[in-house]
């Protein structure tokens, strides 16, 4: 498990390092500031995330809740 986590972390770190980050001015962020570009869940997905966490064993790492509520039916 730890080996796999290390691999995933290394891949993510590699992704960061190979992408040359450019210092962006505010006027260059128009596309990044588009509401569809938000690095998070859409509001309309809120209840989808609930049912996924109830029907599947894995949860977390999606900026959602990590507890609370039963959903046990």
């Amino acid at each position, binding site marked *: 498990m730890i080996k796999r986590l290390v691999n995933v972390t290394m891949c993510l770190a590699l992704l960061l390092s190979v992408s040359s980050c450019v210092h962006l001015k505010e006027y260059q962020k128009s596309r990044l500031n588009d509401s569809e570009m938000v690095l998070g869940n859409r509001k309309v997905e809120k209840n989808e995330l609930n049912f996924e966490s109830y029907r599947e064993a894995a949860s977390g790492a999606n900026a959602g809740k990590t507890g*609370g509520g*039963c959903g046990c*039916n």
Partner: protein
Amino acid sequence: MLCRVNAWAQVSNNSLAENKTPFTVSSPANVTDTSDYKLRKIHVDEVDFVSSYYNQNGDHSAVTGGIGTEAVTDVANSLTLNLVWLNKAQNKNTLAVGLGFDYHTAASQAFVSKTGASSPTGTRIYPSVDWTVENDKKGNTFGLGAYYSGEFNYQSLGANLHFSQKTTDKNGEFSAKLQGYFDKVTLIYPSEFEPASTTDFNGNGNGYGDGGSHHNYGSSPRTTLSASFSYSQMINSRLQIMLLGDVVTQHGFLSLPFHRVYFNNGKDTIERLPSSRFKLPVGARLNYFLGDNIIIRTYYRYYADNWGIRSNTAGIEVPYKITPFFSISPFYRYYNQSASKYFAPYEEHAPTEEYFTSNYEYAKFESSFYGVGFRLAPPNGVFGWQGLHELEIRYGHYTQTTDLASNVVSISLGFK
């Protein structure tokens, strides 16, 4: 003329304080201190309403030991009021007050009673409050939140503390969130296992969902503590990424008392799981703006826990902007997981095992979730109604290799 007026407007307050005559066409009659002009009283910034209809069918209910109907319908509604104000230090404060209400019918719930006489319906109510203060100059935010969820057989009380800090160039941001959930599992057993002390005053058996006022069920605590971290970075003018990771620990009563397990000798009992669980999910998001109309949103998560479950989740969504204010977004999500070491199907557990469950949430399976969303956010309001600034509708179909299938349709309305 306009340039000269503008030049006066840009003169600092110091020149006024030193009684110097500003460079202007004519001095204003009354010079007043407007340095706190931004101080605003609390006002409603946005109201969000999300409603979903969900239905599912399957044939592996945990209530009946891994066999039997999993038919569920659920209607979930939530309303969030975002209140905003500036404090004296000109920091933006946001108070998000939310209230959610769900109503469900679950066919298997009726079989908490051996005869199928328990109520198959239930409700859940979940208020929440979250306060955030944002210091724009320092590029950081700090916040506190509280949460409650109550349903017939489960109560949850949560609190969180969150913090974020932007990098000096404001192209990156680190966030951290600490959460605690302090839950109570009501000890409702299948009718054949229900202790005599929990029967109602008329001597009847399990009355799951019938109001419960005349039952004296006990409860058992479940505590969840988590720390969530994320770092987002703008790579260039079209690409941004985010790395996410949680550390989650749970203690207490982690099984559910009305889940049956049938052993390979034909006898049944209730689910038994360890009293602690450690979860470690890590993930990444990558969003790319392709051309002028297409956005590619991707997500990946790897998950591991100490119950033996390993899982991968990968998702892609491709919003296509038909106009700058109307987009259509097909999406696909793939998920797989290995089985928990405590899971076995109906009549496959041995009575000698220490822990056992036939809940297919812990089985080995793959799932697919696909569908499409529509988003409308015209500058003059949706359908010309200025108050409604955003409308989203989304439909998804979900299938598991356990034969569970579901549909969900959601609508989100944003009011200003």
